[in-house]
């Protein structure tokens, strides 16, 4: 148990170490003029910009975070439902799958105007757009996990008289958990991107909105500052999903 805690801390420390090294290298590159600072501001300048600007960071962070998480939850719920439907019935799979893939291959900037026209320029349309970027990995990953079970376990339950729904509950569902958590890690990054792009297209608040407005007024430092905060949020969300995955699957062998 204590071993586990130590190992976990060491994992976290190495992630942090890797990030610190990255930031130091970046600082050196700019300080020595390898890349001019009007193109790539140094980390110190970015942090300075965060504190010196009059932007209400918390309000913007909150707006983006809300869209990302709501979209992630909606996308995951939708993805799970579709995964179950697609696994349960071959006909449903044939009918639904092409549309699922079509939505995924269309660029989001192309779908965004349609959604805004249909749903209106509001929070809901931004959340829908975000969910579109997170549901696909959940469908594919979970469906794989539901189908790819040890056939002997299915035989075992059948020989004991279990119904298909009991087999689903006892075998398929738990079997899909590792696949599901891989999908969720992809989905949470998708949701973060989705929230930003939705804000690019139409918004008056949020980190994506800040980035576009700062860029159009050539405020490079502020653009990077918003991007930096976004990255931190993305990493934290990813870490959170991974942490929940680890905690709920102590039985899963990694590496």
């Amino acid at each position, binding site marked *: 148990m204590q071993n586990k805690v130590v190992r976990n801390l060491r994992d976290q420390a190495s992630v942090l170490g890797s990030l610190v090294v990255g930031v130091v290298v970046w600082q050196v590159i700019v300080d020595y003029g390898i890349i001019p600072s009007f193109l790539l501001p140094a980390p110190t300048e970015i942090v300075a910009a965060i504190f010196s600007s009059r932007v209400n960071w918390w309000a913007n962070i909150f707006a983006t975070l809300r869209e990302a998480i709501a979209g992630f939850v909606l996308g995951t719920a939708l993805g799970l439902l579709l995964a179950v439907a697609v696994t349960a019935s071959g006909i449903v799979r044939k009918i639904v799958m092409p549309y699922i893939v079509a939505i995924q291959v269309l660029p989001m900037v192309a779908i965004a105007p349609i959604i805004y026209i249909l749903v209106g320029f509001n929070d809901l349309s931004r959340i829908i757009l975000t969910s579109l970027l997170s549901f696909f990995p959940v469908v594919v990953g979970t469906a794989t996990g539901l189908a790819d079970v040890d056939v002997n376990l299915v035989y075992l339950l059948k020989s004991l008289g279990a119904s298909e729904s009991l087999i689903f509950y006892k075998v398929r569902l738990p079997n899909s958990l590792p696949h599901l958590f891989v999908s969720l890690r992809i989905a949470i990054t998708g949701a973060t991107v989705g929230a930003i792009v939705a804000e690019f297209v139409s918004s008056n608040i949020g980190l994506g909105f800040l980035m576009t407005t700062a860029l159009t007024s050539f405020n490079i430092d502020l653009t990077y500052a918003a991007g930096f905060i976004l990255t931190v949020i993305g990493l934290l969300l990813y870490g959170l999903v991974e942490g929940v995955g680890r905690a709920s*699957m102590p039985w899963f062998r990694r590496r």
Partner: protein
Amino acid sequence: MADLVSLKDVSKSYTAITGEVVEAIRGVSFDMHEREVLTLVGPSGCGKSTILRLIAGVEKPSSGSIERRAAEGKFVVGYIFQDSSLMRWRTVYGNIKLPMEILGKKGAEAKIPELVKLINLEGFEKAYPIELSGGMQRRVAVARALVHDPSVLLMDEPFTGVDEITKEILQTELNFVIRSLKMTGVLVTHDIEEAVYLGDRVLVLSAHPGRIVEEITVDLPEIREPVIKTEERFTRYTKEIREKLNLLHPLRLSRRPTDAPA
């Protein structure tokens, strides 16, 4: 004693992915007597696992009939597979308990500790399969197959892939467990020594499609110890099986690959 399972002229064909019809077994008939261990031995792909699936009722025969009777209560099988096929998301205890949950037997969990002791896994109840050695996983699979007092025990190559030393230990343990619980079982194997060591009766199957080519009654004590494998009364049986499987035929040795050095 009554027969628990009777197969009469059972054949089974599969339609392969290519659409081709594959005949797995042809005209197989045998009875399983109460408290007897029957072993099926035969080359790979001769339909041994198929016969177990048919007895378990998870597949239907293409022709012929299978009758099942329980000594008492409802007929139910205990099933051990070619690999241990444990639920990796469940602990040792949770895996052993599974058949009770499916059958809705409440309160019957009281016997799990006893079973854990019988298979020498005390102290590992809370361990997950990834934390167990291959041999320990096989033991859990044995306990899972026994927990619900099955009418017959189906064992599909329970020790394939286990190292020789562990295998000998597990075989002796399994023999002891089956006898002390007075189980009726059918064991599938392509290990000729194992077929004799664990069986009261050995059915030798031909290569695909599987047919029974010989039935050998093994007249050895119920509880067996490894030393018996070196005795003449044991090797007499293994030799007979090797003969029936054409393994002692000189033709085999003369059939060299064409590019083999002269």
